[in-house]
């Protein structure tokens, strides 16, 4: 099965909604499984990305771990795809961007209503938050974008079938939505 197209997927600062929408291709997943195999992905639980043909990135870049994962994907994937609103413009997590990080942390962990044992989490295993949530194209080169919150299953299917057929992927008007 060495000739199968290898796809890696991950969610950075996302909600996995784009992954769920990807799964909404329903029985097409069987057709897909005949020609592709999954590398690092929540579907496989592989921890690190190895050489892949297509990398699908959901979510924006919120913390230091997201930066490492994104760079690992860029390094290992021939084609990197920003999937969904958060990867493209930061999305809902980026709505914190005009609030200073310290205020966000204080509100969540120290001063918020009902907070007990108030303290800012500082376990060394926790990735550090970035000052802002960044769209992925501000950190790495992105080859294609699939807008939507989430992109519909039809968007995934059209895009992947185009790529697998060796065509330049394109989305017709009725598949382009930002909501």
């Amino acid at each position, binding site marked *: 099965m060495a000739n199968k197209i290898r796809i890696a997927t991950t969610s950075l600062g996302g909600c996995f909604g784009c992954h769920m929408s990807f799964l909404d291709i329903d029985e097409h997943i069987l057709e897909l499984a005949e020609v592709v195999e999954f590398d690092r992905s929540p579907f496989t639980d592989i921890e690190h990305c190895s050489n892949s043909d297509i990398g699908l990135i959901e979510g924006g870049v919120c913390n230091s771990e997201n930066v490492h994962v994104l760079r690992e994907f860029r390094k290992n994937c021939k084609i990197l795809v*920003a999937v969904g609103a958060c990867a493209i413009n930061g*999305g*809902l997590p*980026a709505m914190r961007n*005009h609030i200073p990080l310290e205020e966000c942390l204080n509100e969540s962990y120290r001063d918020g209503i009902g907070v007990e044992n108030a303290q800012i989490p500082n376990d060394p295993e926790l990735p550090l938050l970035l000052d802002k949530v960044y769209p992925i194209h*501000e950190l790495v080169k992105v080859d294609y974008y699939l807008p939507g919150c989430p992109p519909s299953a039809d968007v995934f299917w059209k895009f992947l079938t185009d790529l697998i057929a060796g065509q330049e992927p394109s989305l017709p*008007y009725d598949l382009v939505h930002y*909501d």
Partner: protein
Amino acid sequence: MSKTINIDGKDIPFTEGQTIIEAATDAGVYVPHLCHNPDYTPHGSCKLCTVKVNGRNCSACTFPAMEGQEIMNNTQELNNDRQKITQMLFVEGNHFCPSCEKTGNCELQAVAYSLNMLDNHFPHFFSNRELDASHPDILIDHNRCIFCNLCVRASQETDGKNVFALSGRGINKKLIINSASGQLKDSNISVQDKAAHICPTGAILIKRTGYFVPIGERIYDKQRIDQVSLNKEKKQLGK
């Protein structure tokens, strides 16, 4: 014989005093635009309607139609420029469509759809803009304002009031409200005013109406803005 201009190889009649965009709309030719509305004095600020007139870029909404003009409109080059302009509008404000009530009915979004804009290309400003929820019926979310000036014009030219103005220049430009406190509740706007309904984006919203029509059933979920715009604006021009 009526006078004509030529747009993308097609002869289009015009009457003296018409702008290029008016003649084009009359003839069923769509020129992308956001700040233009046939009911109001042209503003010429969004630059989406930029067309090439005899080799030079001009705003179709302000430039008068004149005999012998050779105009390029629907070309790859101009549409690429229009896409870049739209991307700049998206990164300058905070346009998070999934959390905006206007999604699906938003002209900025619809223009972006029609230009097949799939990303925002530029670094985002994530500018810190305010929300004015002071008025009982009307909400202003400055995050989504694109400074098209339509609310300013509608308030002055239709409502006979002077509720809005644009203040400052460049990145410091903002929509201001004509009241002592600067808040909408202290202005003389009313929910029936044209100015409260003309915003092409989700910057001025009528409260408690946002989800009467569900997402997916909205204007631009079903139709392209070129068709919607031509149908509407032909009527406005009395055709």
